[in-house]
């Protein structure tokens, strides 16, 4: 049986006890997936998995707190689930986790860049072992999956779900690249270049909060300080400094908690490479606290605790 059939069988066996199971279905065209809330066996026919199922469905879990739900997760999404469990934001008994062994997902942005023109409505997509055949307006284009793979998949060391009630698919031996070229190149730039870069990108930001809303670890909902009037952390003015302030709020509230699922960057409508900030912060957390969010159950986020003697923080001498 295929991985999808196994998954359907597993979901069918538990659907009776659950309010719903969250998975993916085809979106407005064959190239785009959209989250699917499975409430009955009839809905199961629409379920899809594979490289187009990009969304991190753990984002929905806090919204369903107190109800019994199932969720389909890839390896990276399972880290978000673990982090939510560690912070007691969801209850393990209320969640049934259908873990996938994931072969990586695509980046819609890279597909768009690889196609000759803006695709608009895509007629059909055929997914091969290592290629993707996209048909737009009668014209077929074949893309190599390796070329359009999401950045996070290139450095992924957890393709298989780390926590699950059902683990579906064949386990992988991950071979992650040590780092991303775009990250290394950006970090090597001078302060002035980096400053100018953020000035330009934050000038583009329309503060739609898509990055926040897509983030599985952003759980404050209506109490987010970025949208509160009192205290007024971020003014309504559309200035690069205010947009940057909002991003700094997001990054600092995710310090030691971000699982690098990449949803913020994927959700951004104006292509701001937000993961540059997230990866850098995570690197600092790894250096100082040897902590990786979502890698293991029963860990405390490093900023919610302390040591009297910090091994890796030098006391500031004057």
């Amino acid at each position, binding site marked *: 049986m295929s991985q999808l059939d196994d998954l359907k069988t597993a979901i069918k066996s538990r659907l009776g006890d659950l309010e719903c199971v969250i998975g993916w279905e085809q979106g407005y065209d064959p190239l785009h997936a959209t989250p699917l809330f499975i409430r009955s066996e009839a809905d199961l026919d629409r379920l899809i998995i594979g490289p187009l199922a990009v969304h991190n469905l753990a984002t929905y879990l806090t919204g369903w707190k107190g109800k019994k739900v199932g969720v389909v997760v890839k390896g990276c999404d399972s880290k978000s689930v673990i982090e939510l469990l560690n912070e007691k934001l969801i209850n393990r008994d209320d969640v049934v986790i259908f873990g996938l062994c994931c072969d990586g997902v695509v980046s819609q942005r890279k597909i768009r860049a690889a196609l000759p023109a803006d695709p608009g409505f895509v007629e059909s997509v055929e997914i091969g072992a290592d290629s993707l055949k996209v048909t737009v307006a009668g014209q077929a284009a074949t893309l190599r999956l390796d070329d359009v793979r999401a950045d996070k998949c*290139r450095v992924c060391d957890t393709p298989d779900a780390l926590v699950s009630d059902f683990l579906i698919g064949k386990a992988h031996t991950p071979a992650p690249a040590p780092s991303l070229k775009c990250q290394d190149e950006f970090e090597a730039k001078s302060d002035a270049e980096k400053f100018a870069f*953020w000035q330009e990108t*934050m000038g583009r930001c329309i503060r739609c909060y898509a990055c926040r809303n897509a983030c599985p670890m952003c759980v404050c909902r209506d109490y987010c300080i970025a949208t509160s009037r009192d205290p007024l952390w971020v003014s309504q003015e559309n200035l690069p400094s205010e947009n940057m302030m909002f991003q700094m709020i997001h990054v600092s509230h995710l310090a030691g908690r971000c699982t690098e699922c990449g949803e913020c960057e994927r959700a951004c409508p104006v292509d701001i490479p937000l993961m540059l900030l997230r990866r850098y912060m995570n690197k600092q957390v790894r250096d100082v606290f040897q902590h990786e969010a979502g890698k293991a159950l029963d860990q405390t986020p490093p900023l919610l605790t302390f040591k009297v003697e910090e091994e890796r923080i030098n006391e500031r001498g004057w």
Partner: protein
Amino acid sequence: MPAQDVRELRIVGFLCNWCSYGGADTAGVGRFTQPTDLRIIRVPCSGRIDPLFIVRALMNGADGVLVSGCHPRDCHYAEGNFYARRRLEMLKRFLPITGIDERRFEYTWVSASEGQRWQHVVTEFTRRIHELGPAPSFNPKSDVDWNALAVQASQGQGCPCHGSIQA
């Protein structure tokens, strides 16, 4: 840096009530000469300081931000400065990616009896900020700059990996 021969810069200081604010007071009572660029904000504990206070100050045009609290193990509330140490260290390490010079922010520990040390900290930090000069602003200053920004934004310079398929 006396005010009369150089233009003053804007330095914001977040000081804990129990140690560093007392230390600054001790320095004042002892009539130690200090630069006048620092504006002090008194907070109950260094653990009260959200790193975003510092970011907000820098975004609103501060040229430097100094945070000072009780020495570790000496916190009036027993453990506030242990949490503060972790948060402030993460902010300090994070600033380089934003292009803001991390030397514009510093945190340190000064006790209420260390008037001399406070004088040293303020003088050194103010000297450092004067060497760095006024902080650049994220916001364009003139209409011409705003237009340039709008053009740049519409073209989308983007991350090196965006737009090309090779990461």
